[in-house]
């Protein structure tokens, strides 16, 4: 008998007040079945919006199902809150960080079940146990550190530690590796193997095909809220998985129909990110896609933000179309034809409670309405055009950005950038956390833009993407560029990785 069985789980679409609308045509989950054995790692895949997260939120007690039942050890259960689920032994590692930055690591781990001694917090014991837990996980983080002082990757590790400490029988991991570096992913996978040996079952949601083989025992596919099928480990074939996910064969992922031109659109000369880091020089030509590789925190985003005037830099010069830019100010740069697509669409890219129309036009209002008032339908036409070109799946132009899936949100942010009619497009992780289908569409779009003569500077942690899209690649480490790779033949994962972590060994 399976440890966990979910039978016929159905969830109708709900309106903005969270009330289910009994509409027989639109369901988020449609009679989904799912089973989990003791001690297995069960991969759950599907495009964004396929219902994976919703299904897991039902299991994790965050959303009540409209129909269907959950059997744990053969007994029906109905978790009504996250706490209920934890008491049943079901832990949930969220995709978004679920930590209080202003509290210490220790206080975060024990939030809601603080150890006490005569009614008072037992700080020493909590410290000791956190230390033990982190050591057991193989990481060296002081439990008294404030979480906000940790890097994103370290925070992710704490998030995982927190759920591990609950002694769960089932752990749900919703894209746990999306912000981890290679070293940290290795730590996580070691932990997963250890947990498996202890008989813990893991449900693992991921978009990264290469992770399936490393950790998965079985794999289930959801598409459009429906259960498509389950594969055993022996049957993990990328083509098969992808075709189950998208319901069609996927065309070529990367397109390279653009031809780099000669004129330099952007040239950076001897720019320093910090007073102590090495100077950075780079250039991007017309119609060229230039990639920037490196680890999370190598200073790539800082470089992009420095060029775009979001952040202070030290010394150096930025030339645009051969002319030095006197003042790096985003408002002026956008008017000049430079735009930056942020890596964090939810907090920096979108106004989540505004509609698609307003989000798309936000950076172009100066162009659409050069006078004081917003007259006519220009804004709507622009939004409709972008939604069409980028194939954003939505009900209406007025739909709030919050209700869109990750891939569609990303398309809206890209649409906002394109609406400014840029000559230089700086992309920061343009496909982070979105599904394969949406990725392919975004790649196609980037290629089209480059073909029209726009210079593209693209930061990416996704190696195949970096290699597949770029004409040239700069690799960054410790706030500086360590190498420029100009030949397609030299663009190998191993070569780039070597440069990102340093040839001398370092953390690898």
């Amino acid at each position, binding site marked *: 008998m399976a440890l966990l069985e979910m039978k016929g789980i159905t969830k109708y679409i709900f309106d903005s007040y969270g009330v289910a609308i009994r509409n027989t045509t639109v369901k988020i989950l449609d009679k989904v079945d799912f089973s989990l054995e003791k001690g297995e790692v069960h991969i759950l895949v599907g495009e964004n919006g396929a219902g994976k997260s919703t299904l897991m939120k039902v299991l994790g007690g965050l959303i009540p199902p409209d129909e269907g039942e959950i059997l744990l050890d053969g007994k029906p259960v109905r978790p009504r809150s996250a706490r209920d689920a934890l008491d049943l032994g079901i832990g949930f590692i969220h995709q978004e960080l679920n930590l*209080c930055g202003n509290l210490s690591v220790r206080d975060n781990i024990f939030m809601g079940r603080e150890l006490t001694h005569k009614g008072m917090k037992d700080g020493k014991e909590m410290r000791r146990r956190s230390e033990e837990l982190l050591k057991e996980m193989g990481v060296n983080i002081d439990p008294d550190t404030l979480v906000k002082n940790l890097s994103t*990757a370290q925070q992710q590790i704490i998030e995982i530690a927190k759920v591990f400490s609950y002694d769960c029988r089932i752990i749900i991991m919703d894209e746990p590796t999306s912000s981890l570096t290679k070293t940290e992913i290795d730590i996580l996978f070691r932990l997963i193997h250890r947990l498996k040996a202890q008989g813990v079952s893991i449900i693992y949601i991921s978009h990264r095909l290469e992770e399936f083989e490393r950790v998965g025992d079985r794999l289930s596919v959801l598409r459009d809220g429906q259960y498509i099928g389950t594969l055993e480990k022996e049957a993990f074939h990328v083509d098969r998985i992808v075709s189950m996910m998208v319901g069609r064969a996927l065309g070529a992922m990367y397109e390279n129909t653009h031809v780099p031109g000669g004129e330099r659109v952007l040239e950076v000369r001897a720019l320093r990110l910090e007073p102590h880091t090495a100077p950075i020089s780079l250039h991007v030509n017309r119609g060229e896609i230039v990639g920037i590789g490196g680890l999370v925190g190598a200073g790539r985003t800082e470089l992009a933000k420095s060029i775009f005037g979001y952040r202070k830099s030290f010394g150096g010069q930025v030339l645009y179309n051969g002319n030095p830019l006197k003042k790096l100010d985003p408002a002026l740069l956008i008017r000049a034809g430079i735009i930056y697509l942020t890596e964090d669409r939810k907090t920096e890219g979108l106004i989540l409670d505004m509609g698609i129309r307003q989000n798309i036009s936000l950076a172009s209002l100066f162009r659409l309405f050069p006078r004081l008032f917003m007259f006519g339908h220009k804004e709507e036409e622009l939004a409709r055009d972008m939604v069409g070109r980028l194939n954003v799946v939505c009900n209406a132009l007025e739909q709030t950005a919050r209700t869109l899936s990750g891939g569609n949100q990303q398309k809206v942010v890209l649409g906002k950038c394109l609406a400014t009619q840029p000559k230089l497009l700086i992309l920061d992780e343009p496909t982070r956390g979105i599904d394969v289908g949406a990725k392919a569409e975004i790649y196609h779009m980037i290629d089209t833009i480059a073909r029209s003569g726009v210079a593209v500077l693209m930061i990416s942690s996704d190696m195949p993407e970096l290699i597949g899209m770029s004409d040239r690649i700069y690799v960054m480490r410790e706030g500086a560029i360590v190498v420029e790779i100009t030949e397609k033949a030299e663009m190998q994962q191993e070569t780039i990785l070597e440069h990102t972590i340093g040839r001398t060994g370092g953390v690898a």
Partner: protein
Amino acid sequence: MHPAKKYRPALTALAVVAAFLIGGSFVPNFLNPANFLNVIRQCSIIAICAVGVTQVIVIKGIDLSVGGNVTFCGMLAGLLLGRGVPVPIAILAALAAGTAIGLVSGALHAYLEVPAFVATLVIGQITQGAAYLFNNGRSFGSFPPAFVFLGNGSLLGVPVSDYIMVIFVLAGVFVTTKLPIGTRIYGLGGNEQVLKNSGIDTAKIKLFVFAVSGFCAASAGVLLAAQLDTAHPTQGEPYQLDAIAACIIGGVSMAGGEGKVIMSMVGALIIQSIRNILNLLAVHSFYQNILVGVIIIGVVAISMMTRARRANKTAQFAAADAGALKP
């Protein structure tokens, strides 16, 4: 930890004390013990209010009912004492009323999701209005000696008000740092969703914090009536801004999640000292308000600037990150 970082709080405190003594020595009579005792006696009212307000601001709230609550509870105690109710019972009744007022604000905020700003502003208006009704806008006075002793008496040369203040501050420090609910209060200011996901009923914490603030304001109101031997329907008003300002000067972040009760007491002491110095220099009270306002803006601006600079410094690059995650 870097030594400079480790000793920063101690050095800051030392600098403040030095500035206080040096600056104070230029003002005639400021460092005179009798005047100084007066300052710390008066600052007790602000400090007691600030114990509650600190916690409210930490959970990203704001309490604008402090002024009304101080007045209301002072007037209620005055009314009861005037009717011959024994002193302890009058005090307890006033404290219970103040706590209930805090609970109402808290319930509006926690369960009806009224923004704290609106809920407490309205409750402050209602209590202020009710305070006028107790004696048709007139004041109460001539309280029993036992009651006045609380406000003006001394034990071992130290005003009784300050013993009460210290008890409140210590209790506030104890709750926020030693009890589980303290961690949850700070957590609530940091990220409410995390607490909900951990199965914590955040509405109860909000209710608790607003009740505490109501209780503190009520205690301050009763103590103020005892200090002045009068309960007048406008006497709580100045403490509204002073209580919030004490927290801000003490380093409580309006963005929530940060701030210490003990530092708010220091903030209260600073505000009262400034007012006292201006009095000694014979600055008219109208100008005093302007100056106090300017000083608060200055303090807030400086703390914002240093915080921004510190945030910039902690932006790290990969080498440091990877080093801390040794496999």
